[in-house]
């Protein structure tokens, strides 16, 4: 059973579920002051994203709305909110924890899957083309050393990333 499903089955409330995960530990410290929202460059230009609102919905247990919504993917990861939070809620990390839950449930933007697939294949999230690699010597750059893609594959299978990713690919 996936971790998110296990936690649901164990009857954990959504705030507890988030707080029990890597990155989500500080969510319950939020007292809704809104410093995050007023520091957020994305919230200034779209009503679709507001970090205070996202934390509030999570604390109220609105799991489906949070996990299946667009908002968690609109954080630009600038860390302004986290830097300024008077309660030391690690907001950007909490959003990563929410994304991790969403991913386990099969929700992930296509672009992220493309990065993951390049990572698994080449050890880099963006492939270095043969053309660019050849051009290095013309520019006077040393040849690229090989990536540690084999070690990476073993790390990704130890953390379960491989399995999670394969499941997504099949969906």
């Amino acid at each position: 059973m996936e971790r998110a499903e296990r936690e649901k089955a164990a009857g954990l409330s959504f705030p507890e579920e988030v707080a029990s995960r890597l990155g989500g530990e500080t969510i319950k410290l939020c007292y809704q002051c809104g410093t995050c929202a007023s520091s957020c460059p994305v919230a200034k230009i779209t009503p679709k994203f507001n970090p205070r609102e996202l934390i509030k919905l999570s604390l109220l247990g609105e799991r489906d709305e949070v996990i299946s919504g667009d908002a968690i993917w609109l954080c630009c990861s600038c860390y302004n909110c986290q830097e300024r939070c008077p309660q030391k809620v690690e907001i950007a990390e909490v959003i990563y924890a929410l994304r991790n839950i969403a991913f386990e449930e099969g929700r992930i933007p296509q672009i992220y899957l493309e990065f993951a697939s390049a990572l698994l294949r080449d050890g880099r999230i963006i492939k270095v083309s043969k053309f660019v690699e050849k051009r290095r010597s013309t520019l006077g750059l040393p040849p690229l050393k090989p990536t540690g893609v084999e070690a990476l594959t073993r790390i990704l299978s130890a953390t379960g990333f491989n399995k999670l990713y394969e499941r997504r690919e099949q969906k």
Partner: protein
Amino acid sequence: MKRYALFLGCTIPARQPNYELSARKALTKLGIELVDLAETTCCAPPPIRSIDLETSLAVAAYNICLAEEAGLDLVTLCSGCFESLSAANNMLKGNEHLKKRINRVLSEVGKEFLGSRRVKHYLQVLVEDVGIERLKRKVSRSLSGLRAAAFYGCHALRPSGLLGLDDPERPRILDDLIEALGAESVEYRNKLKCCGGLLRGYSDELALDLAREKIINASKAGADCIVTLCPFCFVALDMGQLQMRSRYKEAYDMPILHYSELLCLALGVDPEELAVQTHKVKIDKVLDKVL
């Protein structure tokens, strides 16, 4: 001569070898030796962190292990790599429980994270190992008369508790490094606001709105160029201007330079050696002013 393991990451070798070129030239000229490590991988930045935080920490720690084994500190040219590696490094150094958890994963590849090395952004190397005063003395082509808008982006500065590069609200490092070359660092509105780079590919419209604001604010302040320290900020603002032209039907012509390119110019490097033709927005205006 101080030696560092150069961590290139993905974007720079794949898309911006010209950035790597200028950084290698400048650092070498200033007496910094760069060592290329074999078997490195992607640093596991936000897109991978979004999938699984534990994986991204383990991958970052694996790369730091390679530097530990080589007995070298790491230097990055990319703020994304800097943040992934430096944050993981300091997080694991300060959390024994998490370190054990990650080391259990790393034991699968025969590695153990010790926490014995530092991860630096190359601007820190310039300030700490070369020094502003020595850098000033090395300038052979002063950039006086050039008005440059320093752009820090996000991941060199924040989360500041784990990165410690500079004050996250009032940073000076890039301004000081620009002024060391004789140029003027101009103040502009919302200087510290994000370029929107990480939203590219998911919400291009929001990403462009954020980037456009930077271009407009720097233009209004009378800047001749924007100076970046990260390949993602560079793309968001340089390539971004082409996309802005078609999306907003407005003409933008703000040259974007990597700090290392500006540094090379000040150190007397011929621009022909820097492959600057790869910039989407031509930098001729800047070259005319400084050459």
